[in-house]
């Protein structure tokens, strides 16, 4: 995995929700690839951790899943966002933005000082 940072605690769910929002219905592999691509392949996503995270989101009612067939006619489980998931995404995204802004200020100030 080299120097690639691991996915930070708690951010994977947010990435999944956001990816599902932009891509619509998607299967696990597609989600994993997409998350890696968006991160510019800078992120080391452990695929193994993606599926338990998906299950958790589903149990919490933020996403729902259904078996279907992929573009290559392979049976795959497809995920999509629920209404609660959309709300959750808005909220979490807002919070995350705020956090990063605050942190950015601190780090910038430290540079100038």
């Amino acid at each position: 995995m080299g120097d690639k940072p691991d996915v930070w605690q708690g951010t994977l769910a947010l990435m999944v929700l956001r990816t599902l929002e932009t891509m619509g219905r998607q299967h696990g592999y597609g989600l994993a690839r997409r998350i890696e691509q968006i991160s510019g392949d800078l992120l080391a996503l452990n695929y193994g951790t993606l599926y338990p995270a998906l299950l958790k989101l589903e149990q919490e009612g933020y996403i729902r899943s259904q078996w279907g067939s992929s573009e290559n006619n392979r049976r795959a489980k497809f995920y999509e966002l629920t209404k609660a998931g959309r709300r959750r995404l808005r909220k979490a995204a807002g919070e995350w933005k705020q956090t990063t802004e605050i942190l950015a200020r601190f780090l910038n100030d430290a540079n100038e000082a």
Partner: protein
Amino acid sequence: MNKLRAFWTRLLNTLRRAPYSKDFAEELETHVAMDTERGIRNGLSPEEARRQALVRFGGMAQARDACAERQGLPRFESVLRDVHYSVRSLVRNRLVTAVAILSIGLGIGSNATIFSIVSRFVLRPAPVGDPSTLLSLHIMHDGDRCCNTFPWPVFTDLREQATGFSGVAAYYDLVPASISGGSEPERVWGQGATPNFFRVAQLQMVMGAGFVDSDEKAPVVVLSERLWKRRFNSDKDVIGKAVILSGHPFTVSGIARLRFTVSIRSLTRSSGFRWA
């Protein structure tokens, strides 16, 4: 809210003992297959593509376990399994079970009994008017508290001369008598008491006036509430009637709440008393 929902789903999965769905295995397999296909498209041999896909996936078994763990409530499940196991082994060893149940039952029973005794005699305040001002007098012998039996003249002297008390009363413990008349005769235990006894102890009457000072040496009796209920069937007209105690007629002058315990503070230290 959503955490609760997730917990609920997991709990239901556990209780239904849903077999860890093959979904996970299939889903993870699909993932690896898709990744393998991509490798092949990129020009790798099928074997190499699959190997790389598995490496990238990083721990198939761990992922499956994580999903399985996430589906139910593993801790709760293990508790459930333990309960199942213990019930099964209890059913198998009936004798051991019987002995265990019996000893636990006896343990609980004896503890409850001990507690009810302690509660009645120690914890519950005495039903006297003001327990903190009620004292029990004792004779000291060689610096130790000896006994609370006083000769009658000593008692009368105390009653007349001890001005620090609002009253001094005496009782004589446990006088046996046979009560007759009406139904079967039976043996009862009573106490001899000075007429001012109920007043000094501020004990309440359920009915009747109790003793009056002129009653000294008069054949009057105060019945306990328990005896009154049991033997006289809570007769409201019993006051003023005669009961035969060991062949002598006594007039009932009151019904006392006598089923109580008193913790009387003695002059030197506290001690527990039981008046039945």
